[in-house]
């Protein structure tokens, strides 16, 4: 879609979350909110980043949006900052609702906060941070896309992303335990086991519509002899859409509850499922809001966990996955946690043929779903599709039919791209491959 066409369409995207919020605003209110955020919540970093950027444009080719839109300059990271923060700074916050609509669209749907640009900028300017500040401003003004705002409400009301009720959570776990006992009679999903070594946490979509992932995680835990538990109370959800809307207060409450749940259960560490943004929230954003330099309870991502299990010999390979695979390096666990080599170690142990995508590791392209963009819902699906043609090209070039993506949002994003660009590929989690190929000593 050309820039003009997209701008035209953006003008008319009917998003009640934006429209309703904007209808309540006046230039005075907007100015006040912007000034408040700039004065109280930002400091040296924002000042340096916006002042010392010499507008060299070297960040442009880092961004999948820019590349997928054939070098449309409006999508370069520096351009996104120009269309949002620079204008706000120039006018000292005195901007109108129409500007704010465009700024919200840029900040929430045209940037995945993937930080690829931060490793392309000679000064290491963190564009994702600047866009986060813009989102914070939009959130405080009540101008957020409807779908993601709904998940924020869910977080606020139920402490999980998907309006899962307390009893639904327990029911889902017990249901999967029962299903799994058909295959592995001694399998249990221990609930509320105090003093266990591991508390396993998941994102809310898992009990809602991906329960088989809980099943497979339980099998992996059981068959490797892990001393684990899951909480039966709110605090089980490690996901965090409020980090992406700019609702940092709820983000703080969520992370505090998650850690306090682990502390209540007196576990040694939290192991979390294959999710990217949840890890970012726990490890990089939520903890900072709470003033924690590190983490009160250590957190291990699933990829690292599988790697440990393999290395310690607890997890054994029964057979190899025959189909050739490629690996998508999720932003939040690779640029965000350096797990690219461990992921490859696990992959090589379980998969016969591995074809790398190019570029890969820290330089991999984002799936375009992360950073809350896919969570902004259907109105923006085509924005994502148009914004990630490079990903489609990248995957197609591998020539394989299976892509492993150890992140839920990446799955959804890649599935959309695969479908839209007719790539005929399949996405998989590591847990699926491991479940299929591991030794299960207790299985009938």
């Amino acid at each position, binding site marked *: 879609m050309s820039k003009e066409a997209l701008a035209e369409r953006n003008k008319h995207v009917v998003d009640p979350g934006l429209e309703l919020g904007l209808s309540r605003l006046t230039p005075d209110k907007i100015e006040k909110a912007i000034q408040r955020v700039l004065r109280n919540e930002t*400091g040296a970093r924002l000042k340096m980043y916006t002042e010392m950027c010499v507008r060299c444009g070297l960040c442009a080719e880092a961004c999948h949006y820019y590349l997928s839109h054939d070098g449309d300059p409006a999508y370069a990271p520096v351009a996104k900052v120009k269309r949002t923060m620079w204008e706000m700074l120039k006018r000292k916050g005195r901007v109108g609702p129409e500007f704010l609509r465009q700024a919200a669209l840029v900040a929430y749907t045209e940037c995945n906060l993937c930080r690829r640009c931060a490793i392309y900028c000679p000064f290491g300017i963190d564009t994702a941070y600047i866009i986060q500040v813009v989102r914070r401003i939009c959130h405080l003004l009540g101008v957020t896309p409807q779908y993601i705002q709904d998940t924020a409400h869910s977080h606020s009301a139920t402490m999980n992303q998907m309006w899962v009720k307390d009893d639904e959570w327990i029911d889902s776990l017990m249901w999967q335990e029962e299903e799994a006992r058909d295959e592995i009679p001694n399998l249990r999903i221990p609930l509320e086991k105090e003093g266990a070594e591991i508390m396993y946490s998941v994102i809310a979509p898992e009990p809602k519509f991906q329960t088989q992932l809980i099943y497979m995680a339980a099998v992996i835990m059981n068959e490797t002899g892990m001393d684990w538990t899951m909480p039966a109370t709110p605090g089980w959800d490690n996901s965090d859409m409020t980090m992406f809307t700019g609702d940092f207060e709820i983000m703080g409450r969520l992370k505090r509850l998650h850690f306090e749940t682990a502390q209540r259960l007196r576990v040694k560490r939290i192991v979390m499922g294959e999710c990217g943004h949840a890890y970012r929230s726990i490890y990089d954003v939520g903890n900072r809001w709470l003033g924690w330099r590190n983490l009160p309870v250590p957190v291990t991502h699933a990829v690292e966990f599988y790697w440990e299990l393999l290395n310690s010999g607890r997890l054994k390979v029964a057979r190899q996955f025959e189909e050739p695979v490629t690996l998508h390096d999720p932003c939040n666990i690779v640029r965000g946690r350096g797990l690219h080599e461990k992921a490859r170690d696990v992959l090589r142990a379980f998969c016969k043929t591995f074809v790398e995508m190019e*570029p890969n590791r*820290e330089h991999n392209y984002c799936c375009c779903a992360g950073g809350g963009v896919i969570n902004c819902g259907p109105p923006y699906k085509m924005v994502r599709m148009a914004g990630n043609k490079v990903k489609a090209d990248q995957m197609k070039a591998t020539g394989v039919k299976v892509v492993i993506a150890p992140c839920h949002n990446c799955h959804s994003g890649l599935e959309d791209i695969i479908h839209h660009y007719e790539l005929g590929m399949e996405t998989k989690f590591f847990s699926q491959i491991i479940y299929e190929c591991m030794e299960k000593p207790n299985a009938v």
Partner: protein
Amino acid sequence: MHTIYNLVVGPLTWIAGAVFVFGSIYRLVSMYLSAKKKDPFLLEYMDFKYGLRSILHWIVPFVPVNSKRHPTVTVITFLFHLCLIFTPIFLLAHVVLLDTYHGLGFWTFPETWSDVMAAFVVGACLFFGIRRAVLKEVRYVTSAMDWVVLVMVFLPFLTGFLAYHQIGPYQVILIIHILSGQVMLAAIPFTRLSHMLFAAVTRAYIGSEFGAVRQARDW
């Protein structure tokens, strides 16, 4: 002409120098205080080893991926900065001044070297200007200030080169040279040129975040 010359070489030099030195100190200190008060992670996560690692990787051309992708810009920018910084310091004419007025003499570049280096800076500025006008992604984010900053750097080197070769009315060119150099110096703490002060900070910070917190590489 002589009174103007004495003015620029005397008081104005002191003023410009003071603005540069104290302005830079002021910016650095106020940035530090701002970080301490409002951006505590900047200080908390700053890590000497990983910060240095990032700086060292980016200070060598063709090590970072993006540097490899833009070989011309990399070479020109790198040489431009080297020439920009070292020519004024080791130029014979400048050292003679320092020696005459303050008894501070030291080694200088051979004149042909400084000539080439100054010419290179002038050529590089032209390259940056053309690049800014021609490349879409650069033009899109360009404002008047970007041109002002470029001219501020271009003028002292152009007029210095012209003065040395005695092209044009010598005394006028010389005075413009001194004035434009002073404007550039004084502008450093207060414009985009402050990247001279802050680039190492932001580079070290993102290096620290990527290295120490995220255990990934930022180049």
